[in-house]
């Protein structure tokens, strides 16, 4: 009998145990991601994973692929540089909400606007977990955090809407409960030419959960199971996330548009021919 976990070839086992808390949703997200890679049967030497800083920022370090752990917020510009210098690579950015849309927000917007040919997977756990549970760009109004002791009062980002308006060609959202759909969306996103974005709604029982009545990973999973509504192609302006409200999940955007490299090759063609 083969006792090896099928995911093992994709993990750096020498770096285990990982740092994630029990009940955390990042492990599930990584599991879905690896299975999506296996589905695609993509050669490992063609894949690069880039992460920023934070709990999800550790993903790159645990994957047995060429991976890069960037400065806080700069995973996307790094990935862009990587892709431009070697367009044959499949470049995936795997990071958290704070890293991607707070400190890295401008890069997120501009990579989508350029339709840069990369896949961005954002594990959204509604707080800065690694530093102790401070509020972030996605914390729902009313939710408590270590720097919103009286409850948050800032309108959070609606990430799929942000990605769509900035120019993303593929946008999906699932929770960590929806492992099959998540795996499928990750597969589709990686197959898509251009800027593809998958938001993973994930539980953080240690910090966000403890302060907001999701004390265990199981509490969150039950909530996701009972309060998720799947819709294909709703208006992204209708899918805001509230505090302990219904969660709209599904594939929201799937369109075709020339990528940055398509545009570049097209525009430079004449110039390059002249030089040649």
């Amino acid at each position: 009998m083969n006792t090896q976990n099928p995911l093992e070839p994709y993990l750096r086992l020498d770096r285990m145990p990982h740092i994630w808390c029990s009940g955390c949703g990042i492990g599930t997200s990584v599991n879905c991601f690896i299975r999506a890679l296996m589905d695609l049967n993509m050669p490992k030497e063609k894949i690069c994973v880039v992460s920023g800083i934070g709990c999800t920022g550790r993903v790159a370090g645990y994957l047995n692929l060429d991976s890069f752990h960037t400065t806080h917020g700069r995973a996307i510009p790094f990935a862009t540089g990587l892709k431009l210098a070697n367009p044959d690579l499949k470049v995936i950015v795997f990071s958290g909400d704070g890293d991607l849309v707070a400190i890295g927000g401008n890069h997120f917007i501009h990579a989508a606007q350029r339709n840069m040919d990369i896949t961005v997977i954002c594990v959204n756990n509604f707080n800065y977990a690694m530093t102790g549970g401070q509020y972030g760009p996605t914390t729902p109004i009313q939710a408590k955090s270590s720097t919103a002791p009286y409850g948050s009062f800032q309108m959070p980002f609606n990430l799929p809407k942000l990605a769509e308006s900035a120019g993303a060609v593929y946008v999906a959202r699932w929770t960590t409960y929806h492992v099959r759909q998540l795996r499928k969306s990750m597969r589709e996103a990686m197959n898509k030419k251009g800027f593809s974005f998958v938001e993973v709604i994930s539980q953080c029982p240690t910090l966000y959960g403890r302060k907001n009545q999701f004390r265990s990973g199981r509490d969150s999973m039950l909530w996701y199971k009972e309060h998720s509504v799947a819709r294909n192609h709703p208006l992204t302006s209708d899918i805001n996330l509230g505090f302990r409200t219904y969660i709209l999940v599904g594939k929201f955007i799937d369109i075709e548009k020339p990528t940055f490299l398509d545009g570049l090759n097209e525009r430079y063609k004449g110039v390059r021919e002249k030089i040649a």
Partner: protein
Amino acid sequence: MKYVTKLLKGNEAIGEGAILAGCRYYFGYPITPQNEIPEYMSRNLPAVGGTFVQSESELAAINLVMGAAAAGGRAMTSSSSPGVSLMQEGISYMAGMEVPAVVVNVVRGGPGLGGIGPAQSDYFQATKGGGHGDYFTLCLAPSTAQEMLDLTILAFDIADRYRCVTIILADGLLGQMAESVEVPLDYKPREYKKDWIMDGCKGRPPRIVRSLFLDPAELEKHNFHLSEKYREICKKEVRFERFKTRDADIVLVAYGTSARICKAVVEMARADGLKLGLLRPVTLYPFPEKEIRKTAERAKALLVVELSMGQMVQDVKRAVGDACPVLFKGRTGGMVFTPEEVYQSVKKIKIKDEG
């Protein structure tokens, strides 16, 4: 003045000091090991009519501080090494515009992302300007939770008095440990007349707050003015502590966490009959050059003890010249020496001296 004794983490003492000093605007971004500062401010600023914003990045934080300070408010941000590197652009602009603010750096090991253990490896950045251009930031180095509070209060006063950025250079150890702190109950911060702030030009000509001077002659003049200010700061604001240096043969020079450890080393050595002392700079800019020179003239050797690969030691050597040998003991990357380890280094000097 009346005091109340509180058990506070070093980071919380900074928050407490800032609010006492009249800080009403705090902007910051999460980073370990300083998170207790924004957490403290988010909890306590609302009750005094203040405003807390968790910014989207350190770049945003320093620019929010710049704005609030340009409006005349007392503003602060805090971070740890990688975050403070991101703030350097804003700090240079504030130095150029002479906008006062307090920036706390709870230092962790570097370079790059480094680690989260305590370090003193940002000394150069904090004392030599840090960003681009001809400027200095005043730099205070606390070594106890009490000083985290006292020096934060002082930092706001100095910042307003000289219209400069004041850096509080702590480290992960000072930030995280709890000590009893005497908190003044009826402290009244001194008010400074701010005839340069942007508060609407009703009844006066409009003002401009800027760091752009395209005419080289004008920019040079501006730099002469800044330089004059730094000279005055160097003359008036030097602070340091002497600990059993009067009869000392060997004097340790250390600040912050290293100085705490060195105090224990001095006690150990004295118990053995060794004449050891400690000179602790409290201001790292301005640096207590004259005092170090005077000490060196009387001592047989100085040992500079730092949580870095040797940064302050360069300033000590410059101050000492050829007055006596200057030796160095350092650990880095978040590693902290024990008093015994430093004592061993001291004993080696003794042996060398006699041989």
